């Protein structure tokens, strides 16, 4: 049972649904999950946005006004039959409704109950909005991308929401494993803030144990942590990415000194000067020219593609990453499938997101018939 809205909680529910769980969104009558009405580029699938379908496909919807005692009772009878409850209300809301863990556990001892908060329950930020850009800004993440002189550069994906959803699904699955063995449920807590911090664990661990500050490159930054040449470089006709590599090998591949008067051991301390020399040299030839040389020296590098360029690659088509969502109206939309293969099988599902309250009656019936 999913009492979550927007992206973090619902993306977690989506993964569980794709792994075979029956996921029921509990939504407010007349309104529902606000992302039903949030569209990207004004793309609508039906009365719901395509975005909503992307995140909530393969689920059911049960409409209940949690402030109405009758609806609340039905939700509680449903909880008695459920395995997992997830919610992302701000601290205090579920307590007021009488749906907090302590109360719910009395209804269903084996319940696995996960709370997602923005910033945890303590501390002055506990009531701040748990929104991705704000989390990126407050957790230091905005100082990891872009170049040093750019000021903070946020990542252009709701990466904290996504990562939190992924971590939430992991811990629910871990608790299911334990429940199977011991019969006990679990009370699980995670926050967007903790996810944002743990996403930066490599950088933060390095930062905690060094004396200086963490600084991005002034040119072609790829990671504040890494030395030359790590980053993306312009060529005569496009861009190529250079990952970690031995600078000696890179010089051999390029066929020219690229150390700018420095030595290999300066890859960290003088990375910007060395990167500048590499950047100047790479500008002189095409991406294909460089890729030939780099790959023949087994250096970790690739061309930089946009979605159109990726889309035309055989490697992309071979993945069969797309699947059709089939709406009741007959309309179809393409979206991506779950990234996990179990026993060599990809999991496809053509079930779109539910209309608000689409499954209320059938679930009530199932409850009455003791069929859940």
């Amino acid at each position, binding site marked *: 049972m999913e009492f979550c809205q927007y992206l973090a909680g619902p993306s977690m529910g989506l993964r569980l649904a794709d792994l075979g769980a029956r996921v029921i969104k509990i939504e407010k009558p007349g309104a529902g999950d606000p992302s039903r009405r949030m569209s990207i580029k004004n793309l609508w699938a039906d009365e719901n946005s395509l975005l909503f379908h992307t995140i909530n496909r393969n689920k059911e919807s049960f409409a209940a006004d949690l402030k109405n005692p009758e609806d609340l009772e039905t939700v509680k009878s449903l909880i008695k039959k459920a395995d997992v409850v997830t919610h992302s209300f701000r601290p205090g809301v579920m307590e007021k409704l009488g749906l907090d863990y302590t109360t719910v556990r009395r209804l269903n001892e084996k319940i696995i109950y996960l709370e997602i908060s923005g910033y945890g329950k303590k501390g002055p930020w506990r009531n701040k909005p748990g929104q991705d850009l704000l989390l990126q800004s407050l957790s230091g993440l905005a100082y990891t991308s872009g170049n040093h002189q750019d000021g903070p550069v946020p990542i252009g994906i709701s990466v904290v929401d996504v990562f939190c959803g992924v971590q939430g699904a992991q811990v629910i699955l871990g608790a299911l494993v334990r429940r199977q063995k011991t019969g006990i449920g679990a009370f699980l807590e995670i926050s967007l803030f*903790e996810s944002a911090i743990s996403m930066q664990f490599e950088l933060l661990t390095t930062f905690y144990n060094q004396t200086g500050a963490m600084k991005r490159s002034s040119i072609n930054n*790829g990671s504040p942590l890494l030395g030359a040449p790590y980053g993306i470089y312009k060529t005569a006709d496009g861009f190529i990415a250079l990952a970690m590599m031995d600078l000696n090998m890179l010089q051999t591949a390029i066929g020219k000194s690229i150390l700018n008067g420095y030595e290999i051991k300066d890859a960290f301390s003088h990375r910007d000067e060395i990167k500048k020399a590499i950047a100047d040299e790479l500008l002189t030839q095409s991406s294909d020219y460089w890729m030939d040389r780099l790959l023949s020296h087994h250096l970790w590098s690739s061309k930089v593609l946009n979605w159109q360029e990726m889309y035309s690659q055989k490697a992309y088509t071979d993945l069969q990453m797309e699947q059709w969502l089939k709406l009741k109206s007959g309309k179809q939309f393409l979206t991506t499938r779950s990234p996990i293969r179990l026993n060599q099988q990809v999991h496809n599902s053509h079930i779109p997101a539910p209309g608000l309250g689409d499954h209320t009656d059938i679930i009530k019936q199932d409850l009455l018939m003791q069929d859940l």
Partner: protein
Amino acid sequence: MKLLEDIVVVDFSQFLSGPSAGLTLADMGANVIKIEKPETGDICRHLYVSDVILDEDSSIFHAINRNKKSYMADLKNRFDIKKIYKLIEKADIVIHNFRPGVMERLGFSYHILKSINPSLIYGSISGYGEGEVWKHLPGQDLLLQSVTGATALTGNKEDQPTPMGVAIIDMLAGAHLAQGILAMLYQRSMTEEGGTVQVSMFESALDLQFEGLTCFLNDGHELPRRSAINGAHPYVGAPYGIYKTADDYIAIAMADIVHLGKVMNCSALQRFTDNSEWYFRRDEIKQELAMALLHKTTREWLEILEPAGFWCSGVLNYQQLRKEESYQELEMEMVVKNSNGIEVTTTRSPYRVDGELLLSNIGAPLLGEHNKEIDEQFDLNAEK
């Protein structure tokens, strides 16, 4: 009781993707045994990864491999291979992130291991899946960001492709693997059957971009467009972004532009009354907003905007973050100690289970540190 009490993981993986899955399982209580090559071990111990070296290993290695054990074995030596087979016989999970074909050549294919341990769960991470074309390419985070279009999402319109500064594809692939493994463990508890779990960094990178890609797949393959200024998300309209103030920066998420203009006392913003323009004319709006925000400090703006209900915040670097009470209250830092007594401050697992943090002060293992212990515990030396 820990979530994964008594679960044994034999982990052949290196660098970040596979080992980050191992770390999650370890923090949930599993016994994670790294299988490492003599002399070098996991290449993440030394190779190019950070210039902060702690007790001879990189800071990153310590962060990724705390709370695990190290078993040194030469996978080309038949005595060592035999021992690893015996270990796997008693294990629940095997993880690897070699390129397709390598485990098979070494004699550790799922087929062989299944005959040793029928209920084994066999998890693997590849760079690009098993499709012929790209399967031999190196599966590395920056390269995966680059080939999947992810570098076209961050930064401004005129910037060159801008990678995300954290190795998020590695971490997501690791997390997706852990999800699949945990789901299969759950299933195994009912069916007693194991199986394979496969993820690739390629698929994980696409999954990360599922919102934007779904849009691309249905709107005639239009590419995402970054803002000309204060870019924060190619698909979100003004004011969404980070802006300079009189003394620092401020982040403002989705907001009603007219209302924002009123509260900020900025008439230029109040002209944009048609909310469909907030996306299509976002650069003009952002330009006006950027100029207006320069007139007050971050704190002054937050004092005006937060009480009015706007989603906004300051923008912190690590030094500033560490001083914040909310960060300190989170107790996200944890000190681990390796067997040489070297202490490393790192971050803990993000979860609380039954009200308790998942803490562990066990540092990353020295190479081969647990050979003797594991030989004894799993009786690997006995003749069979």
